[in-house]
C-alpha cells in the first residue's frame, strides 16, 4: 500500500516548493522545515516501499501522457537504493541547512529551490522511461543553476551558475541526441507493443536492445555517456564543478556530492544493458572514468579552498564510479552493484565532509586552507566527524570507503587481467592521491597552529546532528550492508526481459571464469543471474583476503590497505606537525611549472572560456552578424536603393515642357503605326 502513494515522493517536495515560494517569507526560517518534512515523508515512503518489495518485487505504474509518451514510476532495486539514499541524505542536509541559512534574507527562496531540486532528483530516480528521466535531469540542472547562483549579487556566483548550466547543457545535447537515436531505432523495429507499453520505457528498452544494430548502439551509448559526463562532471565537462562551490555549502553537499552529480552514474547504471551491448560502450565509460579519477585527484593536491579540494575529490570519486561501471565489460552486471555501492557510500562521507567544511567555514569565516589550522581545538565534534569522513574517503580499512572504493579497484584488476590494465593503474594512482589530498586537507585544517585570527566556536546542534548521523553511516555502512547490497542489486536486471549473454555477444565481451561457456552456448534463461551470482560471491570472498576463483594474488588484495595508510602517512609527513618531515614548498616551489599547471587547473578556464567560448562561439556569432547586416540585409537595401535611384532617373521624363510631351506623343504614334503595319504584314492582326 505504500506503493500506491509513490507519487507523493515527488509531489510533496513540489508542494513544499510552492509553499516556500509563495508564503515562505512569512514562515520562520523561511519555511525550511517544510522542505525537511517533505523529504522526510519521502524517506518514510521509500522505507515503506522497501519493506513491501524487498527482496524480489518492483513497483511499476504508468499512465499515458501525450503523443506516444507516458509518465510513470519504476522502482526496482537500483531505484530503491537510490531513493533511500537520496531521501535520507537530503533530509539531513535540509536539516543542517535550517541552521546554516539562518538569517539569510533569501532563505525562503533557498528552501523553495532546494525543495524543487529534491522533487526533481527523486523524479529522475524513479522515472520509468528515458524521456521522463531527461526531463527531470534538466530540471535538476535548473535547480543547480538557481542554487549555485543563490547569492546572485556576487558576480562570481552568477558566472559559476551560468558556467554550470551551459557545460551541462553541452552534455545534455549529447544526451538528447542519444535519446533521439534510440527512439528512432526502436520505432524502426516496428515492435508489437502491448497496451501500456511505450517505446522509451526502460523495460521495453532492455527487452529490445539486442535487436538494434550494433553501430547505432555505440552511437546511442556515446550520446548517453555525453550526458553523464556533463552531469557528473567527468573530463572534459568537469570544469563547472569546482566553480560551483560558489553556492552555499549545503548546496555543494546536496547537489555536488550526494545527488545531482550521481545522476550521471545512475543513468549509465540504468542503461547498463545498452552500454553492455554496445561495442566499445563500456570501454568509453571506463576510459572517461579512470582518466577523470586520476586527473581530478592531481588537481585536488594543490587547491587552497577547502571546498575546491572536496569538489575535485567528488569529480575524482565519480570517475571511480564510472570506471566501476565501465569495467563491467569484464565482470558483467556485478559492476552495477559495486559502482552503486560506492555511489551510496560516497554520498554519505562526501556529504559529511561538505557539511563539516560548511561548519568550519561558518565558524571560521574563511574558505582558505592557508588561513586555518588548529581548528580542532575549538570544534571537537566537527573534527571527529570529519576525521571519520576523511578516513572513509581515503579508504582506511573497515570504513565504508574501504569496502566500496576498493571493490572497484578489485574489479578493475579483473578487467585488467582480461582486457586492459590501464584503468586499474589509473585508479590505484588516484587512490593514492585521494588519500594524500584528503589528509592534506584534514591536517591543514584541524591540526597545527592557527595561521590567522578566526572565529572560535562550535556549530549549533542543528548542524552537528546531521554530521554525527552521517558519520555513523560513513563508518558503518560498509561492512554492515555490503553482502546484502550486492545480492540485492545483482537481482536488479532479473526483473526484466534481458539476456546478458546475448548482449555480451553483441558487445564483444568475454567473461572468463564467470560462466562464459554457458553464455557461449546461448542459453536463453537465467544466463545473466548465474554470471552475476558467481561473480559477486567471488568479490565478497576476495575482500576477506582469501582467493576467489578469479585468483587475485595476495599482494593485490592488500594493495588498497597499503595505499590508504601510505597516503595518509605521506600527507602527514608534509602537513601534520607532529610527524612533519618535509615542507610542502620544498618539494615544489612556488615557481615550479608542474605546480603552476595544477594550480591553474591545466589552464582549462583559459581554454574553455577564452578560446572556445569567446573566440570560437562568439566569433562565429559576430561573423553571422556581419553577414546578416552586410549581405542578407545588404542586398535588400541595395535593391531598394536601386529602385529608388531608378525612380529618380525615370521621373526626369516629366520635364514640364509641353513640346517634349508632344514629341513623345508623335514618336509613340509612329512606333505604333509601324508595329501594327508589321503585324498586319505578318498576319497577326
Amino acid at each position, binding site marked *: 500500500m505504500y506503493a500506491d502513494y509513490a507519487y507523493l515522493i515527488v509531489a510533496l517536495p513540489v508542494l513544499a516548493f510552492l509553499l516556500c515560494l509563495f508564503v515562505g517569507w512569512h514562515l520562520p526560517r523561511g519555511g525550511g522545515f517544510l522542505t525537511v518534512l517533505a523529504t522526510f515523508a519521502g524517506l518514510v515512503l521509500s522505507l515503506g516501499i522497501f519493506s513491501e518489495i524487498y527482496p524480489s518485487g518492483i513497483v511499476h505504474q504508468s499512465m499515458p501522457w501525450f503523443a506516444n509518451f507516458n509518465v510513470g514510476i519504476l522502482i526496482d532495486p537500483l531505484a530503491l537504493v537510490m531513493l533511500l539514499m537520496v531521501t535520507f541524505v537530503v533530509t539531513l542536509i535540509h536539516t543542517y541547512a535550517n541552521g546554516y541559512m539562518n538569517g539569510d534574507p533569501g532563505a525562503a527562496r533557498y528552501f523553495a529551490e532546494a525543495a524543487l531540486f529534491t522533487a526533481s532528483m527523486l523524479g529522475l530516480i524513479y522515472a520509468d522511461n528515458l524521456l521522463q528521466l531527461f526531463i527531470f535531469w534538466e530540471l535538476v540542472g535548473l535547480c543547480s543553476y538557481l542554487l549555485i547562483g543563490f547569492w546572485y549579487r556576487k558576480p562570481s556566483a552568477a558566472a559559476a551558475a551560468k558556467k554550470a548550466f551551459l557545460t551541462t547543457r553541452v552534455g545534455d545535447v549529447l544526451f538528447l541526441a542519444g535519446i533521439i537515436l534510440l527512439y528512432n531505432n526502436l520505432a524502426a523495429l516496428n515492435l508489437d507493443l502491448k497496451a501500456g507499453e511505450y517505446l522509451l520505457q526502460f523495460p521495453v528498452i532492455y527487452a529490445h536492445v539486442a535487436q538494434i544494430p550494433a553501430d547505432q548502439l555505440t552511437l546511442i551509448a556515446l550520446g548517453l555517456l555525453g550526458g553523464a559526463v556533463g552531469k557528473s562532471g567527468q573530463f572534459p565537462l568537469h570544469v563547472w564543478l569546482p566553480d560551483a562551490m560558489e553556492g552555499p555549502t549545503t548546496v555543494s553537499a546536496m547537489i555536488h556530492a550526494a545527488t545531482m552529480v550521481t545522476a550521471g552514474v545512475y543513468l549509465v547504471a540504468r542503461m547498463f544493458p545498452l552500454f553492455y551491448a554496445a561495442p566499445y560502450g563500456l570501454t568509453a565509460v571506463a576510459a572517461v572514468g579512470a582518466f577523470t579519477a586520476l586527473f581530478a585527484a592531481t588537481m585536488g593536491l594543490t587547491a587552497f579552498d577547502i571546498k575546491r579540494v572536496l569538489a575535485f575529490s567528488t569529480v575524482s570519486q565519480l570517475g571511480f564510479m564510472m570506471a566501476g561501471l565501465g569495467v563491467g565489460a569484464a565482470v558483467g552486471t556485478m559492476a552495477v552493484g559495486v559502482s552503486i555501492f560506492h555511489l551510496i557510500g560516497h554520498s554519505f562521507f562526501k556529504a559529511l565532509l561538505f557539511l563539516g567544511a560548511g561548519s568550519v567555514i561558518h565558524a571560521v569565516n574563511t574558505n582558505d586552507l592557508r588561513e586555518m589550522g588548529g581548528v580542532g581545538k575549538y570544534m571537537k565534534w566537527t573534527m571527529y566527524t570529519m576525521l571519520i569522513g576523511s578516513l572513509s574517503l581515503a579508504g582506511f580499512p573497515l570504513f565504508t570507503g574501504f569496502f566500496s572504493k576498493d571493490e572497484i579497484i578489485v574489479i578493475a584488476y579483473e578487467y585488467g587481467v582480461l582486457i586492459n590494465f590501464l584503468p586499474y593503474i589509473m585508479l590505484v594512482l588516484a587512490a593514492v592521491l585521494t588519500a594524500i589530498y584528503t589528509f592534506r586537507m584534514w591536517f591543514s585544517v584541524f591540526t597545527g597552529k592557527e595561521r590567522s585570527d578566526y572565529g572560535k566556536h562550535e556549530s549549533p546542534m542543528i548542524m552537528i546532528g546531521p554530521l554525527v548521523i552521517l558519520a555513523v553511516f560513513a563508518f558503518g555502512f560498509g561492512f554492515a550492508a555490503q553482502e546484502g547490497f550486492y545480492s540485492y542489486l545483482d537481482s536488479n536486471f532479473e526483473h526484466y526481459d534481458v539476456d546478458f549473454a546475448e548482449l555480451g555477444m553483441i558487445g564483444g565481451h568475454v567473461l572468463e571464469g564467470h560462466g562464459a561457456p554457458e553464455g557461449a552456448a546461448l542459453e536463453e534463461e537465467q544466463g545473466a543471474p548465474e554470471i552475476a551470482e558467481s561473480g559477486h560471491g567471488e568479490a565478497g570472498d576476495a575482500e576477506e583476503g582469501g582467493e576467489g576463483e578469479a585468483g587475485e594474488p595476495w599482494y593485490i588484495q592488500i594493495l588498497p590497505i597499503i595505499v590508504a595508510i601510505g597516503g595518509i602517512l605521506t600527507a602527514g609527513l608534509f602537513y601534520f606537525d607532529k610527524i612533519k618531515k618535509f615542507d610542502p614548498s620544498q618539494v615544489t616551489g612556488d615557481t615550479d611549472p608542474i605546480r603552476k599547471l595544477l594550480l591553474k587547473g591545466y589552464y582549462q578556464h583559459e581554454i574553455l572560456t577564452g578560446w572556445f567560448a569567446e573566440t570560437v562561439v562568439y566569433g562565429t556569432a559576430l561573423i553571422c552578424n556581419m553577414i546578416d547586416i552586410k549581405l542578407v540585409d545588404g542586398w535588400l537595401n541595395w535593391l531598394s536603393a536601386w529602385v529608388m535611384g531608378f525612380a529618380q532617373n525615370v*521621373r*526626369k*521624363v*516629366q*520635364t*514640364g*515642357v*509641353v*513640346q517634349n510631351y*508632344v*514629341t513623345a506623343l*508623335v514618336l509613340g504614334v509612329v512606333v505604333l503605326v509601324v508595329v501594327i503595319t508589321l503585324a498586319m504584314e505578318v498576319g497577326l492582326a
Partner: protein
Amino acid sequence: MIPLELYILLASAMFTIGLYGLVTQKNGVKLMMCIELLLNSANINLVAFSAYQPNVNGQVFALFSIALAAAEAGVGFAILIALYRLYGTIDLNNINAMRW
C-alpha cells in the same frame, strides 16, 4: 481632274510642316499657328476625298473642323495670354513648372 495623290501629298506636306513647327517652336503664338496648319491639312484631306466621292460628308466634316479649330484657337490664345500675364514671356521652353 487633279489626281487625288497630289492633294494628299499637299496635305501631308502641310501636316509635316505643322508638326515640325509644333515640336520645335519656342514662341507660343507660332505654336498656335502650327496647330492651325495641322488642322487645315486635315481639312484639305477631307475636302479632297469628298470631291472624289458622290457624297459631301467630307466637306461637312471639314466645316465642323473649321469651327472647332476656331474654338480651340480661342481657348489656346486665352491660355497664352494668361501665361504671359504670369510669366512675362511666352517662350514655352521656360514655362516648365509642372515638372518632376
